[in-house]
């Protein structure tokens, strides 16, 4: 309860910052620092500044038109048509055409697209699938499907977003984007955004404290520390699912062993010790706030039942890898100890190691507050391509129950995404997936820009 209250306070603080009473000024450069790559997905902040999708999710997670102004499905969601917004131009002034969108989408996901075929029909795109695609409008908002086209410019790529890449992306440690004066969404308030990547959180906070950065990351496990340091922190609701992804081959081809692993993990300890009580313990794929039935998935550790399910079988040493930074590595070590208590021998290995990995600790972003689309996006990211067609809460529960009971993905925690900002940042809001929405940000200390 206290944890939820703390997050609520942060979200409330975010809402306050978004309730500007003086109109924003144009101009200025926002300086952002991140641990990862500013450009590469998932999470590359610059991508969404430069490129738009056919659809987008509003801060509440609802699907909204973007480069497509409307869409319709036929044939029981096997065929979708999306009509393009007229008059949109890329930053290099080339017109947005169906052919350009088709080429971009085809290049984006290759053989693993949710559709079988996409082709341009005039100023529209037609997607056809071998299986129904009920959540396609929401899926197309994913940054995997942002629309860009290659150019001869130093940046090598142009999009339709509110900012254009300035110069070469170089080694991806630094991205500078400039306001797109002719953006179909309107010219952003900021003149430029500089995103510096590969910056440790400690260095980010240092730069924020001395005025060299305006927006820095706050990992969930350091939110308490950030508040202690009196940083202005804004946090999303829990949108980042920490889960164990299990192989269904080798020793873990045995479903009972997978079920035993799920019962052996001590989620409470993970939450309390590693993530400083900043998340929500979960055994369901979707958070309680989306479904209302998460309590039907017990998250308690049950070593006795885990032993029982293992049935005396001692599998060979399992390999466990974690994707991400220090907290994820620590979490992996702790999970290995948990599994050892249940009779498993687990070796924590490097995720990049060229060997068979039985268990991978991963984070998945809940991108939509539409439960069906949110679940499908998580499953796709996990490599479990399942089309979620549930219409009612009971149907959705049944689907989720079947997926969770397969124990190929063991949900552990839902974590918020958080950022700290300098006092000059105005009107920062976080998207449905916790990403900062920088196109609406302005700076309070810029001299008013009187020139159009």
């Amino acid at each position: 309860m206290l944890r939820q209250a703390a997050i609520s306070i942060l979200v409330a603080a975010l809402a306050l910052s978004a309730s500007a009473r003086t109109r924003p000024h144009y101009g200025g450069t926002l300086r952002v620092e991140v641990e990862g790559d500013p450009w590469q997905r998932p999470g590359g902040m610059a991508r969404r500044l430069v490129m738009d999708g056919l659809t987008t999710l509003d801060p509440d997670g609802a699907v909204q038109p973007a480069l497509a102004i409307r869409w319709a499905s036929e044939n029981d969601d096997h065929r979708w048509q999306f009509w393009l917004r007229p008059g949109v131009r890329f930053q290099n002034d080339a017109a947005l055409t169906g052919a350009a969108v088709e080429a971009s989408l085809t290049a984006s996901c290759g053989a693993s697209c949710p559709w079988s075929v996409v082709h341009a029909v005039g100023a529209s795109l037609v997607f056809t699938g071998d299986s129904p695609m009920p959540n396609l409008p929401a899926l197309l908002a994913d940054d995997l499907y942002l629309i860009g086209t290659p150019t001869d410019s130093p940046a090598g790529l142009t999009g339709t977003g509110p900012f254009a890449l300035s110069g070469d992306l170089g080694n991806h440690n630094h991205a500078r984007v400039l306001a797109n004066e002719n953006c179909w969404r309107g010219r952003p308030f900021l003149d430029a955004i500089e995103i510096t990547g590969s910056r440790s959180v400690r260095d980010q906070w240092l730069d924020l404290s001395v005025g060299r950065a305006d927006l820095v990351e706050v990992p969930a496990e350091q939110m308490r520390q950030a508040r202690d340091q009196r940083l202005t922190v804004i946090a999303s609701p829990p949108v980042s699912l920490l889960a164990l992804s299990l192989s269904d081959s080798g020793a873990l081809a045995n479903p009972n062993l997978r079920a035993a692993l799920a019962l052996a993990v001590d989620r409470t300890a993970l939450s309390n010790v590693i993530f400083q009580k900043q998340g929500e313990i979960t055994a369901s794929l979707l958070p309680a706030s989306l479904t209302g039935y998460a309590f039907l998935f017990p998250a308690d550790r049950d070593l006795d039942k885990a032993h029982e399910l293992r049935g005396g079988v001692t599998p060979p040493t399992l390999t466990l890898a974690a994707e991400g930074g220090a907290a994820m590595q620590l979490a992996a070590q702790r999970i290995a100890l948990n599994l050892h208590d249940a009779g498993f021998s687990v070796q924590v290995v490097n995720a990049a190691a060229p060997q068979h990995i039985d268990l991978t600790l991963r984070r998945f972003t809940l991108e939509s507050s539409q439960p069906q689309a949110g679940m499908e996006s998580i499953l796709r990211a996990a490599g479990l391509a399942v089309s979620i067609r549930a219409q009612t809460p009971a149907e959705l529960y049944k689907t989720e129950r079947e997926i969770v009971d397969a124990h190929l993905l063991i949900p552990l925690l839902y974590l918020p995404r958080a950022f700290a900002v300098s006092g000059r940042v105005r009107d920062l809001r976080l998207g449905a997936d916790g990403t900062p929405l920088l196109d609406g940000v302005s700076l309070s200390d810029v001299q008013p820009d009187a020139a159009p």
Partner: protein
Amino acid sequence: MIMTPMKLCCMLATIAFALPAQQAAAAPAAWSQPAAALADQIAAILGPGQAHLTLRNLSKLPADDIPAIRRLLEDDLKARGVQASGAESANTVRITLSENLRGRLWVAEVMEGSETRVAMVRVDAAGMEQQVPASGLVLRTQTLLTTTGPVLAALETADALVAVEPEEIVLFTRAADGWKEQARAAIGQRKGLTQDPRSAIVFTHDGQGFEASLAGMACAGSLQPPQSGAPWPMHCRASDDPWPLAPSQTSPTSGDSNATLRAFYNAARNYFTGVLNPSAGVDLPPFFTAALLPRPDGAGLLLGGINGKVQLIETSALKPVTGTRDWGSDFAALHSGCGAGTQIIASGSGEALSDSLRAYEIPALEAIPSSTPLTVDGAVTALWTAPDGKSVLAVVRHAAAQNQADTYEVDRVTASCN
């Protein structure tokens, strides 16, 4: 975009009294239908017999409602042949009153031996209304319209209300329970919207229609609802024409009582360029807001510059106004008849935790508060003088709860003498 005409509700601002926030809890009768539906599903699983019934509340339902819901469920189950019994029963029905972002969800876990089956029903969220306290020259606000999308400007007559949204113009007519949407037409901008879209709307000279100005666009339409089946006569065109600044009776710059003072708007930004029509006779800075103000020598024009400074044009001179540090970017003139007769209603600067509206008089070149701040439960995003000058219309954005859409209110602000 869904528009929800809202029943008029008044809020009275006084110094001494703050109305307590009220939340309307749903009447227990509202639970009859979901209780019956859940009982149906439980009975279908269990069949006739006995079951131990437990009930827990994980939702924000008031504890006072729980016994009534339990009674409803027991009665409904009994009517379907399932008798609530003690814990010794082989069957257990564990009912959880839960909720998600979209509403309430009631879940029944039906346990027969080692097998558990689940039933659930969705329950519509009960409406909740909030009143905000205020204090008070006494300012009152009256909510005309509540929407889930931004309203940039609105124009109200006795029978019609026209609301300008970023991409559409909507006509409402008065109904017994509030404003009812009659027609909606796209503005059809060819260029993208600005990040902080704005608009102005005034009556046509004959009073039968309206003229709306938006960034790069001008629209005109009828205040009459369309005949059945006919399209609403509303047309928009690309335009860089200056926008009407206020329902002007007398232009402070020309003295022409028939002229409407207009100003050129920077369609790529969110402010007026500083060029007026007719000309002010002095070079003006770019400004967000302007309001006409009676002055001893005629009319003055109060400008809220994009640099945050408020200045007054009178007798062809531009003079700084002090006492405006707490003002936001929006203000409008209100001809209340109280005090000096005309006040400036200004939004708050954002320094306080919540937005507010406050009346000021400017007898010389200093703004002097003439009311206490009226707290607004949201952010004022637009403010303009109504055509009769006797009220000010404000758009207030209410920040949404987590994962819900912001809502917007069009409020009429009036003042009464104290």
